[in-house]
């Protein structure tokens, strides 16, 4: 019986660790996040971090809350701190790369963003389907903003193939509309120049 418990512990240790990382927040903070969103829990997360400076999930959540509030530089600081704690404690959660990458893009660092989000996508484990779907969409939106339409299309197509992502479908439609609009504008300008 003892041996069975040891074997079960060894098999499930990664899930236990990931679970710990996600569940080390008090119930009231978790409820606030799930009911009102990350920004509503910002004050409580800051207070929690003062007494729990090694909480991966608290820093990760605080980084997201700060990004949603528009303070991207501070958000990157919190997310980088979360990543350091994750690496030190060998927590299997690749979603942090998607979070850092997305906030990097919003802060103007496109190249860094693409590298981080690709790391999240390429990780074989430790990433939930919803996060991976978001990562594909994020990558597509970054390429779309950068006028790299072929790469954007590939990312959105991947999100549709793997997750039937409704966001990716809408983004493809938007990208087509933008393309048509640009072509019409280019034709209009050419005609005016000919006149």
């Amino acid at each position: 019986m003892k041996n069975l418990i040891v074997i079960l512990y060894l098999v499930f240790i990664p899930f236990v660790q990931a679970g710990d990382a996600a569940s080390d927040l008090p119930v009231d903070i978790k409820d606030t996040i799930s009911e009102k969103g990350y920004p509503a829990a910002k004050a409580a997360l800051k207070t929690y971090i003062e007494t729990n400076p090694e909480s991966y999930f608290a820093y990760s959540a605080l980084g997201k809350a700060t990004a949603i509030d528009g303070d991207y530089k501070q958000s990157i600081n919190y997310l980088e701190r979360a990543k350091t704690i994750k690496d030190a404690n060998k927590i299997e959660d690749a979603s942090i790369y998607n979070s850092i990458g997305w906030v990097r893009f919003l802060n103007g660092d496109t190249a860094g963003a693409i590298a981080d989000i690709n790391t999240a996508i390429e990780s074989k484990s430790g990433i939930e389907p919803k996060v991976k779907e978001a990562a594909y969409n994020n990558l597509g939106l970054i390429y779309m903003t950068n006028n790299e339409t072929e790469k954007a299309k590939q990312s959105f197509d991947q999100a549709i193939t793997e997750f039937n992502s409704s966001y990716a479908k809408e983004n493809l439609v938007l990208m087509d509309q933008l393309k048509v609009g640009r072509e019409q504008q280019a034709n209009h300008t050419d005609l005016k120049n000919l006149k």
Partner: protein
Amino acid sequence: MNAILLDVIKVGFHGAAIVMALLTARLLHQALNKWGPEVKNNAGGNLAKILKEVRVFMMLCFALFAIGVSAEFYTPSSHQAIANLMVTPSPWPEDLKPYEGYVTVSRDKLKVEIIDGFAQIEVGDKENIRIGVERLVNKLGELNADNKRLLPTRTPMRGFGE
């Protein structure tokens, strides 16, 4: 003063001088015809002399007008030269790079080339174009910021997916 308005005034003055000379010449010519050949030879002698002078003046005005107009066409004035203008915010914001190809100047629909943070524009009033490009860049900056605010709504859970 606006350079184009200044050109209009200059050409206008020459035109007015020509018209005045023409009217004076007609007046003298009609007066001489009315008084007949006798007056024309005696008392009208002075008038005929003045008429000749008026005609010379009119020719001079025509010549100056022609020189002025051709100079406008063949000499590039300050507002027709290629202008390298710095735009604000300068240099051209990095995150506006994708929009460079879509920037056009409204008057002649010319593309604005962005070179090292400078907008190179051909034809047009330098000062007005500079102000126009600054406004355009600021507007693009606002649109870009609006787009950035909208982007998180187009991906699951504002990009975080959880």
